[in-house]
């Protein structure tokens, strides 16, 4: 038998008693809270706050929280304050589904937002569809969410991969050349992104010299870059995202490949550019939203508001996704004067975002056929240092409207089934 472990006051029994007390209090308290808070309207947000997408998720939450503060300051939704309940999906489907059920069953949320991870977003969409809860996918990009897996209660803010490819391909073709080599992350998002780009390339008359499928989380891209270089393309298209993007661009620049071939890509995010050393910030990219838009109404105010709650840093597209998701839900509910998800889902088709929400020059609305937000694409070039602001790492050249980049509804494969 092992001798009891005692180290003064901190012995096992004390710990166990303390833990039991804490646990008892903790488990009991949610019941207490729900009894008090009868009036607010609850919005559930499921996002991977821990794990590889943590920084995107946390930014979405900040944007969403700002929206909640603004809405409540103006009287809330239908006269009631709104409350944002944030749950961590930990980048795990099982956890995400569980949290979605928790928010819907136990916390009785009226609306659901999430997830950054497309796979989790789709799993949660199944739950929200089952429970008839209006659900906005803020940051999950895979096409099928507003494509062949579209659902009547699910709307999406961020771009589809087809929209991204269509927005930038002819710019790349004209500026860089016709022979393209892809570095593609080996999962659904990467595959669809590459296929969309390849379709555009072929239409323009270019050729693909190769497609390197890189496993997610690759730290060393040298083997793939060796192959890419050997194929002698005009431009290497870096489609990987997140830390893969940071790693690959760092290595590309260290290898000096950017002096031998052009380097560009499709989607780029400010979070990735900020994580790179300045010399790696190169290439032509498309952003889904950018903070420096002189002359566009509402943007400066938004930037100032976010800076106050974001440690002085500017908003990224992710902040805007969270912000827009909450404002959409509040906006449509206030407009239709109901919380019924079926009525609101029908009304959202064609719903246009007002200037202080859309924060972009073009018309921005949810398309009825596929529930996709027709949001603009910001085409431009990465820059190592901002001229006036250390965070101005992207020079915007063009802002293209979403409904010109999005494929027509009948091509998306979306056939949502509406309940009777």
């Amino acid at each position, binding site marked *: 038998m*092992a001798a009891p*472990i005692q180290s003064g006051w901190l012995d*096992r029994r004390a*710990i*166990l008693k303390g833990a039991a007390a804490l*646990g008892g209090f*903790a*488990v*009991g*308290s*949610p*019941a207490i809270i*729900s009894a008090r808070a009868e009036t607010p309207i609850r919005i559930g947000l499921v996002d991977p*706050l*821990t794990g590889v997408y943590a920084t995107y998720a*946390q930014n979405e939450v900040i944007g969403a929280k700002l929206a909640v503060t603004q809405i409540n300051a103006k009287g809330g939704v239908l006269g009631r304050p709104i409350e944002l309940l944030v*749950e*961590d999906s*930990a*980048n*795990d*489907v*099982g*956890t995400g*589904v*569980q*949290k979605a*059920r*928790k928010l819907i*069953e*136990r916390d009785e949320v009226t609306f659901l937002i999430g997830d950054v991870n*497309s*796979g989790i977003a*789709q*799993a949660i969409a*199944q739950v929200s569809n*089952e429970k008839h809860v209006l659900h906005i996918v803020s940051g999950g990009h*895979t096409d099928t969410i507003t494509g062949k*897996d579209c659902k009547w209660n699910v709307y999406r803010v961020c771009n589809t991969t087809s929209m991204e490819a269509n927005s930038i391909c002819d710019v790349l073709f004209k500026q860089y050349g016709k022979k393209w080599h892809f570095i593609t992350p*080996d*999962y*659904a*998002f990467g*595959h669809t992104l590459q296929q969309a780009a390849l379709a555009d390339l072929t239409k323009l008359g270019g050729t693909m010299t190769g497609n390197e499928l890189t*496993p*997610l989380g690759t730290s060393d891209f040298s083997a793939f870059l060796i192959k890419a270089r050997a194929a002698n393309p005009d431009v290497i298209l870096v489609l990987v995202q997140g830390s893969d993007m940071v790693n690959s661009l760092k290595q590309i620049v260290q290898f000096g490949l950017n002096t031998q071939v052009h380097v560009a890509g499709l989607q780029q995010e400010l979070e990735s550019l900020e994580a790179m050393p300045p010399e790696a910030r190169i290439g032509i990219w498309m952003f889904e939203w950018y903070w420096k838009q002189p002359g566009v109404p509402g943007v400066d105010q938004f930037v100032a508001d976010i800076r106050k709650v974001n440690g002085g840093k500017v908003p990224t597209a992710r902040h805007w996704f969270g912000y827009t998701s909450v404002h959409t839900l509040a906006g449509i509910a206030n407009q239709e004067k109901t919380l019924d998800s079926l009525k609101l889902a029908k009304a959202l088709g064609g719903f246009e975002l007002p200037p202080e929400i859309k924060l972009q020059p073009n018309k921005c609305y949810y398309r009825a056929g596929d529930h996709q937000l027709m949001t603009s694409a910001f085409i431009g070039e990465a820059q190592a240092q901002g001229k006036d602001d250390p965070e101005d790492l992207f020079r915007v050249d063009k802002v293209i409207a979403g409904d010109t980049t999005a494929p027509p509804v009948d091509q998306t494969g979306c056939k949502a089934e509406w309940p009777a």
Partner: protein
Amino acid sequence: MSGRARNLVVLLTIWAVLVFAPYWMPFVGGYTALGARVLVLALAAMSVNFLLGFTGVLSFGHAAYFGLGAYGAGFALKFLAPSTPLSLICGMLLGGLAGALLGSLIVRRRGVYFAMVTIAFGQVLYYVAFQWSSLTGGDDGLRGFSRQPLDFGFGSIDILSNETAFYFFVLVCFAIVVAVMGYVLQSPFGRTMIAIRENERRARFLGIAIERHIWIAFTLSCFFMGFAGALYALVNNFADPRGLHYSQSGDFVMMAVMGGMRSFWGPLLGAAVFVVLQDYLSSLTVNWMSFVGLLFILVVLFFPRGLLGFIRRQEPA
């Protein structure tokens, strides 16, 4: 109270708590889906403990068979037939057969080396699930299936939208597997496993075929894991590679250790505490990982025998 009577009381208490869960859980801030999740993960933890606590063999890559079970169920529902029982059987077979195959390769190793090898094998399977995206959906996971209503000929139970019905379905499955597990452990085979755990050399001197017994135990535990995994796929209507990752294995081992490795029901308690705690903490703070890590450390340093082991110590000898 005699030993047998006390065991009976404990057994009845456990089952009462489980059977009435959908009714008392909402009062303490729980929800039925959480209960189903606890049961499934408890089953997995008990399967790990079948090996760890009763045979004395540490497999730290055991989640691979759990994940395979989930995929097996998913494939069955997507490509074979919309039948829930079939999906469970397919999941169990996939996990169990993989375990039988891989187990035969590693039974000669022990201790640290065995653990490392099981981790590495688990990772092979994880990468296969991750990379073979045309079949498994890769990182996005296997989607497009959902649990089908149970058709009994004279009526059917909808376990898809009825959370409570699904919970009881999971409970019935749990009961069946647990009964089988208990039966095996009481049998001469189970006694042999314990003998091997207690003193392998002596057992060998007694003429027991150690490697073969360990292999059988390993395979059995993988069948149980596969079944648990299939249930998990039904809980989520989803199967994904993370179910095979070694961090998932770590969670299962922790549940078994936390509840008490030497006891049969220990992992159930461990799973309940772990799942509920993680669910509660992650709603409370974004730094829940630190608390969970701290829990691991505290359990290892101060409660190595787990909660049940701790409670047992309080009782007079």
